[in-house]
């Protein structure tokens, strides 16, 4: 099929008549497409999320840097994306407060605002595959990064007068799952945000339009989208999401309220399905921690025998995907490459084996093992478990 080269709506009329081959032949010989009200993606580029019934995964292997385009931000929802009228939207805050109040979207936007570039990751973010034919998107594409803008929850807490005795709050969405999670009040005072903007513009519907809770560094599910209600309480509510789901077996126990996302890194290039050629390769990837900044990333090109410091691309932000790079000359030998991150608390990303031994479980939420890429003599790259 012929590639559609018409690139802006207003340019359609201009270009439609010109046969494609002619056009691409020498772009200096024909006027191009005039400016448009909205920019376009090149018709030669088709980054797509990988979808399941309940999620869509960011194509990490196709991306560069630390910002995820908003339309490629991963999705995980429990009964679809609701349509919410921003004109009638309100956020109710009640329970253990002096004054139960409702805030319209325009109220929220008028309060002092805050902005931060921060990752959001689903705690179910790990998959493997025995035959190795699995891309970063499928391994851990349930993480994305945006600039999030909104009002600090603490600002609203002051406004309603949260009781000093309140220890938890319930966050409730207005999707068809009426998603609910219990969150410690301390997080609300610390750095929780009611976010209404993402990467410059209104939050996208898939990310909680018109407003969501955003808990920096914490598992995505707790950052309840399409937020309609916050109830202050002196105990957790033990919702289905924090009991039956989003808990993980650890030895003979089930671990609950494991909010913070452990440090993880992944090499996104080279990675399946790329095939590499002999010579210099810049190994690239992202690393992050819900506990603070990335301290260092190490890369091994000899299956974990030795490790070298990767270069961290500034800015190195708190609770944020950090881009790392490591220059490597591949001489054509069969090998395994892998990365491991250390966060500023001193936590070193474990191997798969270390994790399963520590937890007595081979999977579940909050599973963040080092992932390795096997490279064959022909340059083929396949996932390998560690």
């Amino acid at each position: 099929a012929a590639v559609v080269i018409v690139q802006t709506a207003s340019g359609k009329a201009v270009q439609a008549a010109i046969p494609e081959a002619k056009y691409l032949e020498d772009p200096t010989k024909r006027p191009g497409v005039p400016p448009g009200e909205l920019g376009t993606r090149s018709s030669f580029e088709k980054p797509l999320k990988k979808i399941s019934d309940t999620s869509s995964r960011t194509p990490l292997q196709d991306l560069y840097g630390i910002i995820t385009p908003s339309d490629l931000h991963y999705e995980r929802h429990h009964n679809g994306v609701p349509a919410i009228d921003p004109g009638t939207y309100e956020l109710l805050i009640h329970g253990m407060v002096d004054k139960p109040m409702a805030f319209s979207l325009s109220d929220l936007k008028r309060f002092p605002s805050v902005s931060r570039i921060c990752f959001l990751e689903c705690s179910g973010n790990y998959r493997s595959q025995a035959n190795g034919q699995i891309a970063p998107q499928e391994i851990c594409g349930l993480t994305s990064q945006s600039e999030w803008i909104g009002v600090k929850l603490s600002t609203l807490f002051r406004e309603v007068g949260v009781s000093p005795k309140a220890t938890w709050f319930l966050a409730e969405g207005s999707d068809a799952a009426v998603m609910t999670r219990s969150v410690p009040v301390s997080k609300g005072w610390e750095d929780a945000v009611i976010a209404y903007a993402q990467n410059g513009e209104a939050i996208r519907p898939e990310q909680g339009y018109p407003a969501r809770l955003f808990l920096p560094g914490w598992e995505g599910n707790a950052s309840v989208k399409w937020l309609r209600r916050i109830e202050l309480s002196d105990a957790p509510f033990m919702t289905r999401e924090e009991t039956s789901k989003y808990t993980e077996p650890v030895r003979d126990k089930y671990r609950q309220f494991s909010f913070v996302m452990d440090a993880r890194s992944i090499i996104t290039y080279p990675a399946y399905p790329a095939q590499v050629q002999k010579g210099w390769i810049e190994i690239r990837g992202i690393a992050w921690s819900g506990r603070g900044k990335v301290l260092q990333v190490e890369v091994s090109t000899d299956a974990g025998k030795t490790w070298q410091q990767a270069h961290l691309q500034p800015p190195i932000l708190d609770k944020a995907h950090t881009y790392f790079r490591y220059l490597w000359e591949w001489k054509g030998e069969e090998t395994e490459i892998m990365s491991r991150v250390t966060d500023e608390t001193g936590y070193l990303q474990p191997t798969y084996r270390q994790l399963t031994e520590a937890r007595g479980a081979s999977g579940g939420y909050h599973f963040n093992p080092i992932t390795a890429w096997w490279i064959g003599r022909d340059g083929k790259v396949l996932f390998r478990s560690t």
Partner: protein
Amino acid sequence: THQDTLRYPRTFGLGRVVSQEEIRKLDIDVRPDGLGLPPGSGQAAEGKLLYARKCAVCHGEGGVGGPSGSLVTSTTATAPSPQRRTEKTIGTYWPYATTVFDYIRRAMPFNEPGSLSNQEVYQLTAYLLHANGVIGEQTVMDAESLPRVVMPARERFVSDDRQGGPEIK
């Protein structure tokens, strides 16, 4: 950013105070201590009929199997039907009985969430607790009795105590 907060006025004068009546319309959650449970009651037998009509298509006959996973502990876990999450049923993995009520009321049936009456939710809760061997067939579930049900999985739940640092846990 601290500096900002210090300069904040006592109030920004935004938002509106809401009445208890307004709150009641949205305040559908139920806590383990029963706070939030509405009037009404139900028993397993009533719930069984409802379940067959509204739930079995997704969660299997008797709560075992079905495309959306089992809700009931099954002794026939090796059956060939797609029995996803048999190890994580209400009987084996749910620490609080109130959560069953809360979740069904807010989210089920999946294709018609929010369509059940409180009475129906009590009935379905009673049915699923009984089918999982947690309560007797005749036990009435209401705002009094439901919070008192002790779930088999309860003792296995622990709160995360990790604080960062080198330990792998």
